[in-house]
């Protein structure tokens, strides 16, 4: 028996169940959709604004890696690539999280972007921050969002509520048919 099965005691093969209650699943899915929405809008505003560029943000970078980010902002060819990767990357990641599509990859990519954003303006002692944004030391909203993504990686929800469930269902169906051909009944414990 799969080790995960005993966490909840029923329907262990139900995709994504993994021993969390229905209420907990709803909470996790809401968290995923909210983070996805945030990424999606950050990507969207950059896509619809023809004048947007990451140059300003890169140039205003602080902290130990500021020099690297600033250097990027001064080469327009590199900047074009960064801009495109940023606007489309944020949008794609946002769509993935909202729709629960390729959820794991989207979660990892989102976390990667947040690491970059965190490093661009790390709230370490001695850094300056924008007024009205609040006060941070080491931990800021980016880091909290990053850790929330960590929770989503630990408790995947794409197959609870998301298009991944359809993909997986389809995969299972194909696998099932293959099994039907090969044997009388499908093997147990197909996830």
């Amino acid at each position, binding site marked *: 028996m799969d080790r995960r099965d005993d966490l909840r005691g029923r329907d262990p093969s139900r995709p994504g169940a993994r021993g969390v209650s229905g209420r907990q699943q709803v909470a996790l899915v809401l968290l995923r959709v909210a983070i996805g*929405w945030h990424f999606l809008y950050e990507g969207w505003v950059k896509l619809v604004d023809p004048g947007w560029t990451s*140059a300003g943000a890169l140039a*205003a970078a602080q902290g130990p890696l500021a020099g690297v980010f600033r250097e990027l902002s001064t080469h327009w060819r590199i900047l074009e690539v960064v801009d495109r990767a940023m606007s489309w990357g944020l949008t794609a990641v946002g769509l993935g999280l*909202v729709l629960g599509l390729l959820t794991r990859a989207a979660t990892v990519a989102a976390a990667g972007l947040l690491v970059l954003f965190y490093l661009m303006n790390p709230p370490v002692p001695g850094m300056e921050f924008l007024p009205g944004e609040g006060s941070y030391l080491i931990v800021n909203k980016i880091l909290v969002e990053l850790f929330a993504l960590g929770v989503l990686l630990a408790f995947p929800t794409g197959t609870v509520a998301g298009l991944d469930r359809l993909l997986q269902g389809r995969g299972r169906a194909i696998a099932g048919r293959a099994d039907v051909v090969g044997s009388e009944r*499908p093997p147990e414990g197909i996830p």
Partner: protein
Amino acid sequence: MSKGDEAPLLTRRDLLAGLATTPALVAFVVAARTHAAYRKDSRHGIFGDLLERLPLPGGAGESGAAPAGPVLNVGLIGVGYRGKQLLVAAGFAQPGQLAAGESLGTDGEAPLGIRIAGVCDIYQPNLDWGVVASGGTAVPYRKARDLIASPGIDAVILAVPDHWHVPLAVEAARAGKHVYVEKCFSHDVDGALAAAEAVKAAGVVLQLGHQGRQNSLYALAARLAGDGLLGGIRLAQAFTNHNGPVLAWNGAIPKEAGPRNVDWEAFEGNGATHPFDLDRFFHWRKYWAYGTGLSGDAFTHEWDALDLVLGGLGIPGTAIASGGIYGWRDGRETPDTYQVVYEYPERGLALTYNATQANGWRRDKILFGADATMTLEGGVRVYADRDSTRYAEFLKTGRIDPDRPIAAYLPGDGRWLDAGTSATQHWAVSRGLLYSTTPTGRRVNTATLHLRDWLDAIRSRRQPACPIDLAVVEAVTAHMGTLSMRWGCRVRWDAAARKVVPDRDTGGTA
């Protein structure tokens, strides 16, 4: 074991769960579109379609092929601080000659289609530098007149002390050579008028070296101001704050310099007679015999930007100025502290300028309009005026906050943002109602663009960006301030006599 495992096809429940979060995407699209429409309405209400019509600045240069037409043979007279910069801007310097972080102005751009056919300097190491930078194509000249007279030269760049601008420009024009001359255009008013006559008579193209005219920022600001976004502009302020020896005209004098490699007589020329003096030779800006003071040297840059943004200032009606030597009491003649007020009664505008060479604080140029205020320095920001009638409705409903820019443009220039923009400013712009944009354009050396404009003008027989008539306005404006300061009285432009004269008043008593 559930039934689903035994029949591993998509169930109704799978379908519902699979699509459970899709409505969030629908909600997102509706919300984002609603928000975008609101912003567009706000923007349209304030600006009409102005912002849609505005070309985003940036990337003004073109990369690609060299210009059509024959290669022009250019001679550079004066390979000093500015002359070297112009050579680099034109794409001529050997790798070892570039300073750290410096690159050729033509890098990533189309070449200018010129050959440096001659260089001239009266300080031998500069002359040698120019020959090397040209790639060996330049013939070295010790006498400017010989370079100008050479049949192998089509056009000359004059990067010499101010007192030599007019004599060499006139000589070049008479020889049929096109001229790019550094500012200030002339050393005195009469010189500017005489040079204009000579240039026009010869039909050559003269470009005054105000490369700031190529700054796309000012073109954008001009469009904003020209479209009436600011309302009537009745007052403008400009400033120069410089600090440190180089900007206070006291840069290091090369150790190897001396009578053996400096042609002192050629430097003085123009009627001046002083004994050999390296301070005068290298720090000529400090002396009235050669330089034009803060007015000719620093103010003219600010004047140039304001002239562009305000759509042609013309010669002012009057000027009153004062100044003193307070920061650098090193025997200099030209004040290091200077202020001037120009009146333009015909267009209903006053322009004030204030400069110091003993402090480096950065001050924006400011244009004060009845409906909005524009600050201009590395970026453009427009703030609605609290008592504006144009924006009254928006101010009343709180859609415009007078403390935040209604329009802002910050070039995507890391170095500038680094030096001139605090996080607070970025924040203010990001919270500004609209149009906070950094273009994807690359940075282009404005001197390269200005040289290109001059060469294009020569090839296509058109007027360049800063032509002879504007050069005269620049020089007269600058000299009015200097004369007012030196005479100790307000001066006015006598248009009929084409002279600057003391503006003696009625002799009122207190």
